[in-house]
């Protein structure tokens, strides 16, 4: 029993953090809101590709790093903390291990509707505006890999403009269908959920840090507002939700990596708790910032809106609690 990350995992995480601090800065995230379709800056993405982060879950024999979920959960956390405006969940957690050698080394951007297609016909595809490939659930129940050129993409306005979502019209064809076993698809979905949960952990940490920094310097009534008990307690509540959801996410990574019998339950618990913690943190962060946080000129909203989106994508907390309930025979 040792619930710590290996030195290698940690140094991988440190490398990713350093790269994203530089290339997925608030200014870079902000730029993604306004870029024309296909014209986003890819330097953060390319740095991740160069570090092997996108291929990390692809077996070594197929050209990847051959790591498992334990080793990459921190990478997703960092992507969340940086507000990375790219589909790292869809690409690194879902598509790359499914596609194996077809993906490895490509550094391609893969968008997918797996996290948003709750009901057929209502779905939209986050990140589709800049994707190299679209991984889509077909009406035939199979997964399809579609080139953007073969589909009709129409940008759609979402609350988080950097999610760059589109409505996508496309025709499934025998050649677009992926030949992967159902079990692999199921596992890919679980990985998507886990990765989204990890991003939420990172987003929550970022929002809390920004807010701590703000309230420690902002003065009203002749005192730092961070010295007021009400502000302290809002932020303590956020810290509390994070302190106990973070290990749940890390544990779910272990459960998936070791194919635990409880893996589905653990992944759902992770996503439910991480979603709630991120939403609680977002509320506390906004309230403690006050009006300054309520403008798009300040950076908080970049992370808050991503948290809102990811809390509901890949199944919201209620959906995942339902799955936990089933596992508990309730």
């Amino acid at each position: 029993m040792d619930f710590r990350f290996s030195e290698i995992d940690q140094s991988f995480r440190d490398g990713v953090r350093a790269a994203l601090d530089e290339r997925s800065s608030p200014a870079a995230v902000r730029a993604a809101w306004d870029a024309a379709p296909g014209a986003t800056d890819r330097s953060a993405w390319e740095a991740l590709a160069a570090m092997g982060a996108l291929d990390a879950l692809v077996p070594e024999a197929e050209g990847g790093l051959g790591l498992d979920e334990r080793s990459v959960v921190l990478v997703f956390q960092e992507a969340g903390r940086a507000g990375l405006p790219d589909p790292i969940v869809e690409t690194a957690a879902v598509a790359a291990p499914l596609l194996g050698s077809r993906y490895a080394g490509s550094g391609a951007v893969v968008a997918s509707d797996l996290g948003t297609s709750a009901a057929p016909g209502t779905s939209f595809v986050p990140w589709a505006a800049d994707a190299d490939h679209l991984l889509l659930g077909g009406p035939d129940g199979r997964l399809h890999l579609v080139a953007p050129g073969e589909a009709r993409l129409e940008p759609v306005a979402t609350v988080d403009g950097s999610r760059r979502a589109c409505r996508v019209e496309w025709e499934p064809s025998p050649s677009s269908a992926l030949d992967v076993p159902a079990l692999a698809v199921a596992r890919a979905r679980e990985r998507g959920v886990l990765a989204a949960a990890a991003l939420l952990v990172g987003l929550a940490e970022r929002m809390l840090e920004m807010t701590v920094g703000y309230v420690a310097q902002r003065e009203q009534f002749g005192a730092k507002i961070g010295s007021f008990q009400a502000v302290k307690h809002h932020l303590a509540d956020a810290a509390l939700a994070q302190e106990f959801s973070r290990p749940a996410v890390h544990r779910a990574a272990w459960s998936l990596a070791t194919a635990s019998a409880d893996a589905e339950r653990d992944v759902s618990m992770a996503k439910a708790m991480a979603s709630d913690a991120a939403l609680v943190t977002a509320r506390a962060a906004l309230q403690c910032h006050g009006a300054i946080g309520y403008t798009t000129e300040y950076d908080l909203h970049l992370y808050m809106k991503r948290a809102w989106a990811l809390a509901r994508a890949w199944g919201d907390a209620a959906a995942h609690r339902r799955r936990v309930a089933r596992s508990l025979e309730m």
Partner: protein
Amino acid sequence: MDLTWSDEEEAFRAEARGWLEENLARWREGCGGSPASGDTAEGFAQQRIWEEMLFDARWAVVSWPEEYGGRAASLWEWLIFEEEYYRAGAPQRITQNGIFLLAPTVFEVGTQEQRDRILPRMAAAQDLWCQGWSEPGSGSDLASLRSTARPVEGGWMLDGQKTWTTRGAFCTHLFGLFRSDPEQERHRGLTYLLVPLDLDGITVRGFSRLDGDTGFAEVFFDGVFLPDSGPLGATVLGEVGRGWNVAMATTSSERGLTLRSPGRFMATAERLLELWRAVDGATRAPHLRDRVVDAWMRAEAYRVQTLAVVSETLAGNPPGAATSLVKLWWSELDVELHDLALQLLATEAELEGPWSKGWQFSLSGPIYAGTNEIQRNITAERVLGLPRS
């Protein structure tokens, strides 16, 4: 105790409902079917037209005297009008900072000349007023404000900066607090001024609210000469140096009845019930039913509590500090109503739309007009009598 409406009140309601139904449809048509947000230049212009329609039919300011464009309606009728207004799905009023925040103060402390000149133009949306209170360093702690008004020959010299001025980029006038006596501190030595935004030296820069609309503005005053008197009469409202007290009358309206009447939240609650039925909540979201019912009850309870408050007010017992409870109630209810809607929409909540927009707007409720932390302090200290810290 009698909770029935009189025949006259029912007739008033029917008239309002009929007019709103017909004219809202007409106005929407004129806007090409879907009016833009009132916090954008386009939407603001559309809503000026709407305000003119309201004014022409004497629905703009129902509770005001007829001479200023009103109907001398009772508080009860005002409540009824508000219910009908939001029930009809009419837009939030671009004139609200004028008619609900400035106007009560003008009625209370203004001169006859100020009333006669300011109010009819405000009611007709000829002048559009924004509030100049907050500054970059003075949000909750308004009394720390630093914008100055230096008395000069024939008027005032204004310097400083206001910010988070709602719809400031589209308004024509600003009412605000300025430090007129640099020797005095905090609540003392402030003066309440009425400032046309087209004066030399004023720069207005609009900026975006959370939802991306240009709902805020910074207003910079750089050696602005404000004459003692202008087309609207004296530019000082109330007494020089007593601006804090004058402003507090406004603050108390803002927290109280007039700014956020129950009708608005009842309408949102009803729309939430419609959404519940539309998405088949009973089947798809049984875990939310209790909370949806509770939110509806909270909106209804606000309506009922308002009946009690108005009854007491008419009997000579206005609510006083208890308005802090009202502000807590509606602001937190509004967040809950929208949160529930987004949960019902699930993944679709991410798409821009009335509920996601309303959600973002609702999040400002616990912040503006005195944060809810401050309102809880006020409740504890002034309603319950707990010691100040």
